[in-house]
């Protein structure tokens, strides 16, 4: 009797930017709007090819990134799963609408392929300069989810994750990758449908006349109907009450603002994704994200070969900052090294967690070049 053939996963040779598209489509993305910008343009170009070929898919090139994110929010309100991709200068333009997405609790995903800055900076060189901007770029106190990916496979996986978190928590999710990963071509495996989960926003089950668009729920995330589905409600960037209408009553304002934080903060275990490599007995540990985490992984391996008890905490969620995972690392490690292609944006968070138990060393590089394994290894072996 012939053994049933195990269906082999599809493998492709893809750019990081292509993997983002694959991930988005697997997660159910059916809308893209944006504006071309190096080094993220491939995402838009491939979307222009692919979206018209899937049922209900739509694509529109807007006049700028402000328009791009505006159209994405509009489409998401109309029930679509929408994506836009950009790089530093475009990300700066998007900040206004990120805040709108936060206060109206609109699920959407922004991929920011980081390049050198400030301003026009280094369009074709990598950097990690937009990390704190992703967290705090839009005005007003707000909560947001920021993810990162360090290789092409992760670009695919984290894009799926980004859509799931956006839908689950009704929030904008920002995925930060950098120019190197975006433009690296490597073999990746496309997961089978059974191997990953797709989460869709919760729809209201009550009749339209009972529906209150911003009512408190157990999870803190109200159900969200699509525009045109019979639930007519008001969406506004003004601070609103449970019915969605503008308010300045202190009790209603407080309720909304606190819920926007609470809905994410009470599920940190679900939101904070990290990968621990050789951390159990690590005396010196590296905390890294993005392409730098890849260099760090090799450096840690080499340091182990040299007899150094090294470990790596790879951050896939940058914000809300994985405080618990960092604290756990600090119980044993005496030194933490934070290599970044900026002057110290995540090391700031690490130092906030630290309380002075360990020594935090940073490796900062802002010359448009990647931090190499050798550079990390040098610090690993010296401490």
């Amino acid at each position, binding site marked *: 009797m012939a053994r049933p053939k195990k269906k082999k996963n599809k493998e492709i040779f893809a750019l990081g930017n292509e993997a983002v598209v694959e991930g988005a489509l697997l997660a159910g993305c059916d*809308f893209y*709007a944006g504006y071309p910008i190096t080094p993220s343009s491939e995402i838009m170009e491939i979307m222009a090819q692919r*979206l*018209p*070929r*899937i*049922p209900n*898919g*739509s*694509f*529109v090139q*807007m*006049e*700028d990134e*402000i*328009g*791009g*994110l*505006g*159209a*994405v*929010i*509009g*489409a*998401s*309100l*109309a*029930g*679509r799963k*929408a994506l836009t991709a950009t790089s530093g200068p475009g990300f700066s333009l998007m900040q*206004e*609408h990120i805040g*709108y997405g936060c206060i109206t609790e609109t699920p959407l995903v922004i991929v920011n392929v980081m390049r050198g800055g400030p301003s026009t900076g280094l369009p074709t060189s990598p950097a990690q300069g937009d990390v704190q901007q992703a967290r705090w770029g839009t005005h007003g106190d707000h909560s947001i989810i920021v993810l990162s990916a360090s290789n092409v496979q992760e670009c695919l996986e984290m894009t799926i994750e980004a859509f799931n978190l956006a839908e689950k928590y009704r929030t904008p999710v920002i995925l930060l990758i950098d120019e190197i990963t975006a433009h690296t071509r490597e073999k990746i495996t496309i997961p089978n449908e059974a191997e990953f989960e797709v989460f869709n926003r919760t729809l209201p089950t009550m009749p339209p006349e009972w529906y209150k668009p911003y009512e408190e729920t157990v999870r803190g995330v109200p159900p969200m109907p*699509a*525009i*045109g*589905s*019979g639930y*007519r*409600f*008001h*969406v*506004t*960037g*003004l601070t609103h009450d449970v*019915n969605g*209408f*503008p308010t300045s009553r202190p009790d209603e304002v407080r309720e909304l603002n606190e819920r926007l934080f609470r809905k994410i903060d009470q599920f940190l275990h679900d939101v904070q994704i990290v990968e621990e490599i050789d951390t159990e007995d690590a005396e010196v540990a590296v905390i890294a994200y993005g392409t730098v985490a890849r260099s760090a992984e090799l450096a840690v391996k080499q340091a182990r070969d040299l007899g150094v008890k090294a470990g790596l905490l790879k951050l896939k969620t940058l914000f809300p900052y994985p405080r618990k995972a960092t604290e756990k690392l600090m119980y044993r490690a005496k030194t933490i090294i934070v290599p970044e292609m900026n002057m110290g944006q995540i090391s700031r968070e690490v130092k906030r967690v630290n309380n002075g138990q360990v020594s935090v060393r940073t490796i900062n590089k802002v010359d448009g070049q990647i931090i190499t394994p050798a550079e990390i290894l040098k610090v690993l072996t010296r401490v």
Partner: protein
Amino acid sequence: MADIKGTQLIHEYLRHNKKFPHVFCSGCGHGIVLGSLIRSIHGLGLSKDDVCIVAGIGCSGRLAAYVDFNTVHTCHGRALTFATGIKMAKPGMHVIVVMGDGDSMAIGGNHLIHAARRNIGVTALILNNNIYGMTGGQCSPTTPAGANTQTTPMGQMEQSFDCVELCTAAGANFVARGSVFHVKRLDSMIMEGIKNPGFGVVEIMTPCFTQYGRKNGFKSPVEMFHALKKNVVKRERFDEIPEADRGEKVPSGIFVQKDTPGLEEKFYEMAARCQGGK
């Protein structure tokens, strides 16, 4: 829908769970536009669920909250970008955008001309009161030369935009201008605008006594309505007036009416070809 008349009709479409009173000053023309919009939608027999009102920021932006449709109150100047997303995602939806003059032609000027060029199937109502009303009466891109405003205390020195010419040049499918004094004509213009495929613009001249009139020699809102009556003339009549005598007069009526299919129609047609061809 049953034949309902006058204020009864308005009540049918207002949101009763919204905390009234509204924000409009006495003498404001925005409420007249709201009435006209409701009559137009009722006249076309559109279902409330199939209408989406997208508004920008400013006094006109508040209009959306009062009516019982799908309503989105967006960021300053960006209403058309949201509307583009909604129309592309739900091509069957009647998307009507309500903006002010500063909203649509200053901060949102780029979005306006590109929406017109792109010919996305939304209808934009531009409530032109020649001033930034909500922020306290600053000069807008349509403030006439010489006018006194909070930011031009010695008189406005810049040229102002002609919304109709701007949108016509940018390629809009439907361009019209009306006023809140000529309500019947306004009703039919808005109806035509909604029915027409592709991008439509209706510029609506509306007075702002509180922020504009008081500083520019008008003694009462009524005087401003009289000025509208005098100055907004049918385009056929306007063309007959010799150029030297035109003064503050502006032409009104439908200036452009083309039936080029909107971007969303073209896109989904292309998508159907892509999916069918495979």
